[in-house]
């Protein structure tokens, strides 16, 4: 069962291009959308929310066509933007009054609980709130209408470590019933290490991979060895390679194959998501 199905999505804008991106976000799990700055994560999310029209391709959310054509599907989505999109001149309470009128499943009691939990003053103007407070407010609004899907664009950026941890715990609570889904974009892989079940990696507008976190970490391997081990054939085995005067360190997407080639001549260890993102972003070019 998929919550979001992206098929052949392409979009060209401002010197950037999303190219034939296809992936699925499984229902009942947390999917992390990662990639370097400018990879296309926010553009993808904006297309899902109907803010940007793709040149090609389609997105289906809970079986309904998503994007500019429809709007009803958004009633089941809790959306947290990477920037404040609420009216600065209004208070948190006034903004809530506007927001809740669009969601039939709005839960006032739940909203008050989040206000207390996040320590948000309802009479404070949004423009007088810190970035963290604005994010907490956005989260309170997004969660208080009981959405089936939570889409968040870099929600932890600029947050203190205490609230970042609290947010990740909230996400884990949110999907406990296995019926609700989370998709959140980030370039902070440490967040995904803690909570993500699936990882979708976007790099320069293209899909690098979309799999479970365990599969990704098992498949990839960091290999270290002396320069003599490298030749034109073995270099092709690496996603990214870093060479120094003394040897090399690289990431491969097929760890078992490279282990069979190098045997005990090289050292191996499991990469982190950050390692995978780093080497994938650097590409197959040799660099110091």
């Amino acid at each position, binding site marked *: 069962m998929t919550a979001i199905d992206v098929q052949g999505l392409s979009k060209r804008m401002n010197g950037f291009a999303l190219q034939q991106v296809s992936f699925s976000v499984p229902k009942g799990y947390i999917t992390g959308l990662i990639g370097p700055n400018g990879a296309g994560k926010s553009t993808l999310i*904006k297309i899902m*929310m109907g803010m940007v029209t793709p040149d090609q391709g389609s997105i289906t959310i809970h079986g309904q066509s998503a994007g500019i054509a429809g709007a009803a599907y*958004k*009633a089941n989505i809790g959306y947290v*933007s990477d920037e404040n*999109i609420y009216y600065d001149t209004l208070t948190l309470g006034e903004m809530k009054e506007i927001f809740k*009128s669009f*969601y039939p499943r709005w839960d006032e009691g739940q909203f008050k609980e989040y206000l207390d939990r996040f320590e948000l003053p309802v009479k404070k103007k949004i423009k007088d709130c810190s970035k963290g407070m604005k994010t907490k407010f956005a989260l309170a609004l997004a969660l208080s209408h009981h959405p089936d899907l939570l889409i968040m664009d870099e929600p932890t950026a600029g947050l203190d470590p205490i609230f970042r941890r609290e947010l990740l715990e909230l996400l884990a609570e949110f999907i406990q019933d296995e019926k609700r889904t989370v998709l959140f974009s980030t370039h902070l892989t440490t967040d995904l290490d803690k909570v993500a079940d699936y990882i979708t990696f976007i790099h320069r507008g293209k899909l690098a991979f979309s799999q479970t976190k365990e599969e990704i970490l098992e498949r990839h391997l960091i290999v270290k060895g002396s320069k003599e081990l490298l030749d034109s054939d073995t270099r092709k085995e690496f996603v990214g390679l870093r060479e120094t005067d003394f040897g090399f360190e690289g990431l491969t997407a097929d760890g078992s194959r490279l282990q069979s080639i190098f045997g005990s001549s090289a050292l191996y260890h499991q990469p982190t998501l950050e390692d995978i993102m780093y080497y994938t972003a650097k590409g197959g070019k040799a660099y110091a």
Partner: protein
Amino acid sequence: MHSIGGLMKKDFLLIRRFIWLLAIYAVVFSGIMQKENHTLIYSLFPGLLLILGISSDSQRSAQQFLVSLPVPRNRLVLSKYLSSLILVVAAVLIATGMNFASDLLYGHPVHLDLMLIVGTFLSMVVFMSIYLPFFYWLGLKGFQVVNVVMMIAIMVANGVMTSLLTASDFRFLQDRFLEQPGLSWIFLILLTLLVSVISYLISCRAFRTRDL
């Protein structure tokens, strides 16, 4: 329709912060301060209120918020037209009320210039019908330029209309209008309605595929 109500409520909440500015303008442009030109308020005040009301959603972040709601884009546009219409009605009523107040203050006979009131309303609807498509078509910077141009246009139009009302050529049109006032008003109202509908369709088209 529930969503349109919510959107309109949002527009009126946002205009609230300009209440003191609007109160000052209402007094300054009315017959209380403009003894020689009590009609000034009829063109400037509704124009100002309209521009303030529409501009409240000019920021990209505001438009992103609106589009993130479970409301189709054409309904977002429709709510803006309805809010703007209500603002025009309110502004014309306020202008009329302020001129009543100035008549009472200076001991003038209180009179209701129905032609001026309805004429102002219809001309403001036409102004709104020109203004809103620009709002949906242009980005923030372009729209800020349009705001300045529109305010200047309102001020210039006020002077032009005052001259036209006293010009002999226009007197001929006025006389023809007054020969068949009922039909003339129906014609003007239908024309204004047509302009509004065309404007709405243009706005929907401009906003439908705009990337935010």
